[in-house]
């Protein structure tokens, strides 16, 4: 076992750090023009959009998980922006690369990568969240256009989006899974109505989207008719990788330890209390396990070997750790946990941890619920029978 980088990778790390030292000034992070130019330069050098071909505006590099990790670390340390955040880059782009037509790739990927097209994910509906096969919003092909009618919900940041990729029922007579198609639509079309949803933490990140006779060109269908289920599963796979990384968890635990050091309970720093120390130690244990699991998965990916059951644990273990961290933080901040997160002022702003706390509850739902993760682990990881089949056993 050897956790050090190869000489090639050490050279690469030097190059990335040198580039950041020369080209990135954190103080200019608010200057859009500057950030756009920086991203373009980093893409040109192959540091960003590594899996996106150059002809679609990407950095086009051979897959190298170690280099990807080196870039993440170096950019993180320099507080430099990486890819444009959001669904478009993280979810739609890889899906189009796998399933899109040449015309779709040319039209949508470069504008998405530059941050001009901002995408909402139109999956969940009232009554159909984790169970996407039950979706009811429909699209009907009339001439050379789809006519879309339906109601999507829990659509993240829909009110700032320019477009949506949606799962819609196009084959009403087909079995549930086979009746869906993956279709793109423009929010500027008449019939799109976005209504923000007020959340328990006072924010409005989620929205409802009403689609009333919305038109979209026939060739904005991604993949074949009725194959939306398969196409969307590619996206979901990316989403789960997306939330599986342990970098943020490690950062959160550092913050938690600082909180425990500076907050007093009964006149003594929280970190001196036996029960707090015990819970911190348990969390530390889970995070360590996640970090080492990450190194092992990185190694396997480098050898092009499947990560197996280990790869399926990422989302669930991140979710559980977030929740443990945030609920310990809520206990440490005490009375400040009674107040809405936005409340600042003489309470020292400890309520931001309540955002983490509520967010950690949401994470057990977002991107595939924890119970669905457990089902997947049981079925694909441990080889147990499918839940619905198990029910039918005598």
């Amino acid at each position: 076992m050897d956790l050090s980088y190869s000489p090639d990778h050490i050279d690469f790390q030097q190059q990335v750090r040198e580039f950041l030292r020369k080209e990135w000034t954190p103080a200019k992070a608010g200057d859009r023009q500057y950030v756009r130019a920086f991203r373009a330069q980093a893409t040109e050098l192959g540091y960003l959009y590594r899996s996106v071909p150059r002809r679609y505006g990407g950095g086009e590099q051979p897959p190298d998980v170690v280099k990807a990790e080196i870039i993440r670390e170096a950019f993180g340390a320099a507080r430099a922006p990486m890819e444009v955040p959001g669904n478009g880059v993280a979810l739609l782009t890889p899906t189009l690369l796998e399933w899109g037509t040449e015309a779709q790739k040319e039209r949508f990927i470069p504008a998405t990568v530059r941050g001009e097209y901002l995408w909402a994910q139109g999956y969940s509906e009232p009554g159909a969240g984790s169970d996407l096969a039950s979706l009811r919003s429909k699209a009907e092909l009339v001439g050379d256009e789809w006519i879309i009618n339906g109601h999507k919900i829990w659509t993240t940041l829909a009110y700032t989006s320019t477009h949506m990729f949606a799962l819609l029922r196009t084959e009403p007579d087909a079995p549930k899974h086979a009746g869906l198609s993956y279709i793109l639509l423009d929010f500027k079309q008449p019939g799109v109505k976005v209504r923000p949803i007020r959340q328990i933490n006072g924010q409005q990140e989620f929205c409802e989207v009403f689609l009333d006779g919305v038109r979209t060109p026939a060739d904005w269908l991604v993949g074949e008719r009725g194959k939306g289920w398969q196409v969307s599963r590619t996206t979901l796979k990316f989403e789960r990788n997306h939330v599986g990384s342990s970098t943020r968890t490690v950062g959160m635990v550092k913050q938690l330890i600082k909180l425990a050091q500076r907050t007093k309970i009964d006149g003594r720093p929280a970190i001196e209390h036996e029960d707090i120390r015990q819970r911190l130690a348990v969390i530390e244990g889970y995070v360590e396990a996640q970090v080492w699991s990450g190194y092992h998965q990185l190694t396997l990916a480098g050898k092009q070997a499947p990560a197996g059951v280990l790869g399926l644990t990422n989302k669930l273990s991140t979710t559980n750790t977030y929740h443990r961290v945030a609920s310990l933080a809520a206990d440490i901040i005490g009375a400040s946990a009674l107040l809405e997160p936005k409340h600042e002022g003489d309470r020292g702003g400890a309520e931001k941890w309540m955002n983490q706390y509520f967010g950690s509850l949401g994470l057990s739902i977002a991107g595939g619920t924890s119970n669905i993760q457990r089902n997947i682990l049981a079925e694909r990881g441990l080889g147990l029978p499918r839940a619905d089949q198990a029910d039918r056993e005598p």
Partner: protein
Amino acid sequence: MNFDLSDEQRAIADAVRSVLEDRLGDAKIGAYLERVELDEALWSEVCGLGVCGILVREASGGMQMDMVTMAVIAEVLGSYAAPLPIVPNALAAWLIDRSGSPEQRDRWLAKLISGEAKAAFALGEAEDRWLPDTWTLRRGESGGGSLTGWKRNVEWGAAADLFIVGLSGDQLALVEANDTTVRHALDSVDRTRRLADMEFRESAAQSIEGGAESVSQLVDALLVLLAADACGAAATAMSRAVNYAKERKQ
């Protein structure tokens, strides 16, 4: 052994439940989430059931029932997330009936029972000082022993007409709301339980007979009733989750 509620306790709980079902059932509570002020009509209606006088002696105009009955009521209130300071009023009436002076009883008891006056407990202080042995507020040397200082996270403090204030050395004081009692409303996570920080500026404070035992009984009662309220809320959440799981198909 008889570990069960009496018919009388059940009847009172049913009466409260019936009013709350009418007013707050079927997700009507949603209308209260943006509402900062107390709903006076709902308040009068629930007070009209006599629940604020449950613990007060009959001779003083109450129903002279026990803490278990009050807990049953708190549980029902919690199960509807009722946005009402019934528990503070009932406990303030109990405290004044038991430990107040004849003048205090005359002035406040009937009003607390009818709901005409609202009481709030101003106990907590900064740095999570909730319990009596951590209270630091004390009477000033001058100004006839008036109170100057802060109490934190006072439930429905912004609506109260009088405050029961916890002082250091296991003392309690009764402070009437006036321009020396400054309310700083807070945005509480629980929107059905509005909180305020209270700032007292040389506020006149009458003593209520205190002592370690009496004060600790009061705090215990507050905690037990808060637990009953939370238990009611949890039971509602549980039964809604079960019902949803029965009806939801996937």
